[in-house]
């Protein structure tokens, strides 16, 4: 077992303040949340100042920037709109990600109370709370998002691997082959191979002619 392995004595003990400085992750059960609180009334002001230029005044998203609200009930449609309200399973993830990685380009500048307030505002924008609902380290983990039960563990082993492990056909595998779709019909591949900057009309944002992009 790993515990029995011989140690080389490399590295040095991490100091408590060093661990505290880097260990910020928050789990669905609330482990990792710092003491603090905020509501959507405060959050609206902070969001307007620090977030709305990309995510919109109502967290609805501007242009190609992520939409944080809306899309309820769209997950089984052709082009689902996946937002905090419609898709995310845990409020903890919202708190954690905003705290650690937002605003984009100026991350790790928010105080805990600001993160609670922004989180509350995003919940409010998704019609999940009233604007005076106070979100805190005490109640955040109890808050259940609409799609909390929408995820299941990778089940390819049960649903795909047997089916896709049958002996492969080598000859006369089908009667007829027809082309059913052409990439050149969409014509969204960059024309100038050196920069790829030729954006096809309507390709960005909603309602374009191109198939929706998979964010990598």
């Amino acid at each position: 077992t790993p515990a029995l392995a011989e140690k080389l004595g490399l590295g040095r003990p991490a100091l408590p303040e060093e661990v505290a400085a880097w260990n910020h992750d928050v789990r669905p059960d609330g482990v990792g949340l710092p003491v603090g609180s905020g509501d959507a009334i405060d959050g609206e002001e902070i969001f307007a100042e620090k977030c709305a230029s990309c995510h919109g005044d109502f967290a609805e998203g501007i242009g190609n920037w992520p939409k944080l609200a809306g899309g309820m009930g769209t997950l089984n449609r052709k082009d689902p709109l996946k937002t905090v309200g419609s898709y995310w399973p845990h409020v903890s993830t919202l708190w954690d990600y905003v705290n650690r990685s937002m605003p984009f380009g100026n991350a790790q500048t928010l105080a805990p109370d600001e993160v609670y307030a922004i989180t509350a505002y995003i919940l409010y924008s998704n019609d999940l709370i009233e604007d005076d609902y106070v979100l805190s380290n005490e109640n955040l983990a109890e808050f259940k998002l609409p799609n909390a039960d929408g995820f299941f563990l990778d089940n390819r082993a049960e649903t795909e691997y047997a089916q896709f492990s049958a002996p492969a056909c080598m000859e006369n595998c089908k009667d007829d082959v027809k082309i059913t779709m052409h990439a050149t019909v969409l014509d969204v591949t960059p024309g100038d191979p050196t920069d790829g900057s030729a954006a096809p009309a309507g390709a960005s944002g909603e309602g374009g002619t191109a198939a929706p992009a998979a964010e990598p």
Partner: protein
Amino acid sequence: MSDKPTTGATRRGFLAGSTALVASAAAARAQTADPLITEVQDWASGWGAGVDETPYGLPIRFESDVIRRNVSWLTADPISSINFTPIHALDGTITPAGCAFERHHSGAIELSKQDYRLMINGLVDQELVFTYADLERFPRVTRTFFLECAANTGMEWAGAQLNGAQYTHGMIHNMEYTGITLRTLLDEAGIKPEGKWLYVEGADASSNGRSIPMEKALDDCMIAFKANGEALRMEHGYPVRLVVPGWEGNLWVKWLRRIEVTDAPVESREETSKYTDTMEDGTSRKFTWVMDAKSIVTAPSPQMPITHGHGPLVITGLAWSGRGPITGVDVSLDGGKNWKPARLAAPGQPMALTRFYLDHNWQGEEMLLQSRATDSTGYVQPTKAALRAVRGENSVYHNNCIQTWWVKPNGEAENVEVS
């Protein structure tokens, strides 16, 4: 055109007069003496470049098209975005680091070895901090693996969209990594019995935090500081990245700064909002870590038209699987009606790219070129229709379907779907 070699037919020339060119190629007999042979060329008379001219070289200018490319409309900005490896133009299996694809969530950061720190905390006997110099003193291993973005081929779920293997399959690279096993490093801290998961994160603003089950961490994960013999490139995580063989690229945390041993997954943004796979009924798979068996014909392909006329044609491509070595690749010229076993350039290595070849005598016939990989578990790469039947069209990630290139009589190729 100054960067083009002066020899050989241009593609335009071929397309304009293919009949004549094919005829002369078939004859294979020169009518007049070739001045490149009969006249003394400058390079056979004067000097080339001195050894002091290029302390670290780049490819010759004639290869200037073998570069990463991005597709600007795919993402909102180029900072949290993707570019693509020019797999259509490469051969063998090792990806040159300088054109190996990038995927960042808050840009490629500059982190020196002096400033680098790696922390292990959480459910360990001793929480530790390592410098870069510490890491170089651990027993070292060298292993070759592919890294494929979970979203590779993701734009193709709903149909044929991007016209080129670089764009449809180029979120991948394959490098020889040197570093230390994650097990070695964890042993130094001592994992407590309740430590069942790792949470790993990078030093960049996005952090890219992901949860990894302890079983995988102790099996074959690596902390890498060299790739293809040299230090990691900045854009690939300099000075230290995580290597997670066979698993989706998002888990290969770059600029790795912290490993936390936990008793449960964190369910971070990168494993809830992203890297979860929505099925047709609106529910979603999570923790879809393994990249299944996959292959692609890299040439001929839309960016690699046949320009040499009829006769011998090398059909080549790449195959890989996150579940073990590739054991075989079949190639079809008729859209999957009939298949022939391709030749593997070398026996498949576990969770690494494998090169295949099929030598064909092309007589100008239309082809619907496909490749189909089989791995050591017996898994056979499925069609897109077979995948859609299970998953629908909205799963975004993990599209390992069989690709079809329609090769036309003039040698051009197009990304198509077939019945």
